[in-house]
């Protein structure tokens, strides 16, 4: 049977990270499952965890009056949800909803921050990983702003 540590070390987010460092997070973590349509968290709530998605798809959405729930992005297995847990005031910026059955490892944010403070190597390594996620999503958001599929020439 796989331990939480096994699940974390096998996850693409931690690929290439010293296994000893990853296993330091084991005591902060637990396995969680969400049903189709279930909310992982809501906008404005305390961002109290990092969710390491093992299976399924999560939609990040926001309620827009008159338009309902608008999905701004999706996160699939192999990725992580949330960086609000490490940026004050530690509150979620969007809703997160399971659009399939979702299995994840939930890493407690307070425990995670404490461990990062106590072990700068772990902290720096994790910050690098999170920065990569943020960088990719920022670039993707900028590309979407270009609306590249809109017809921009005549013929």
């Amino acid at each position, binding site marked *: 049977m796989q331990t939480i540590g096994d699940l974390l070390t096998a996850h693409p987010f931690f690929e290439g990270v010293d296994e000893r460092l990853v296993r330091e997070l084991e005591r902060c973590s637990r396995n969680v499952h969400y049903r189709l349509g279930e909310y992982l968290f809501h906008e404005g709530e305390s961002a109290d965890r990092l969710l390491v998605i093992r299976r399924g*798809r999560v*939609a990040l959405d926001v309620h827009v009056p008159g338009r*309902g*729930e*608008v*999905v*701004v*992005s*999706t996160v*699939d297995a*192999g990725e992580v949800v949330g960086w609000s847990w490490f940026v004050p005031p530690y509150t979620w910026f969007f809703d997160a909803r399971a*659009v*399939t059955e979702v299995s994840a490892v939930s890493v407690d944010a307070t425990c995670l921050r404490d461990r990062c403070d106590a072990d700068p190597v772990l902290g720096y390594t994790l910050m690098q990983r999170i920065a990569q996620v943020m960088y*990719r999503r920022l*670039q*993707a958001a900028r*590309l*979407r702003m*270009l*609306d*590249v*599929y*809109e*017809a*921009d*020439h*005549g*013929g």
Partner: protein
Amino acid sequence: MVADVTAGPETGTGATPAGDPLLPRPFRVVAVRRDTHDTVTMELAAVDGGDLPFAPGQFTMLQAFGVGEVPISISGDPARPGALTHTVRDVGGVTRALCAVTPGDVLGVRGPFGRGWGVADGTGGDVVVVAGGIGLAPLRPAVVAVLADRDTFGRVSLLYGARSPSEVLFGGELERWAAGHGVDVEVTVDQADPTWGGRVGVVTELVPGARFDPQRTLALVCGPEVMMRYVADALTTRGIPPHRVRLSVERNMRCGVGLCGHCQLREHLVCVDGPVFALDRVRRQLAVREL
């Protein structure tokens, strides 16, 4: 064994127009299907009853008589040279006229022109196809050709980005390719609606998760040029050598035979040297403004 493709894409077999390449050949519209609010797929047959053999990735100059002529990639099955299929998006005067055709109308066709995807170069390895928007149309013949010879290829992935769910092209066919031919099909949209349960985001985000062996992969990319630049970066970051990443470059093709120079891209004439280029041949040019 993976085919050596250092020489760049092939010129498609049997894909040179017969007769005067500047003279349009009349084709009758046989069938028309509306794909999206602004995109139409039409099937044409030569009025003279002849075939129009083509290689996947080639284009024709399609003429609405009395309106004008535009380059349109062929989106049909290369194994059916008697049926010329084009998918046209209404983006201007000529394409608006083309999108308004009905069965029985006659259009002028010159071509086929240009160099195709060179699908056979992917034999023995994996194939990853990355399309954005209407860019799926020029790639459709390549996918059809790969699937016609499915056993000679490894893993086949199709990564497709569209603006919204209602603008996803060939939806039913995408499902058949996934279910019946073992293609890893991933579709993402920039803007979702409540009916959409798939991915939301740009197509570049699909590249890191796609399964292929970079050193044995042929990548075919078509879409808006800015999208292709970033997709090419993502593919080479995954380790695919630039000469095995191929892009279909769109420029202002007019004559189709390298005479007029309208489609010049530095040392290349896109209508004869392209439209499909290996990344290492055009990467520098794609980064130059106003070129």
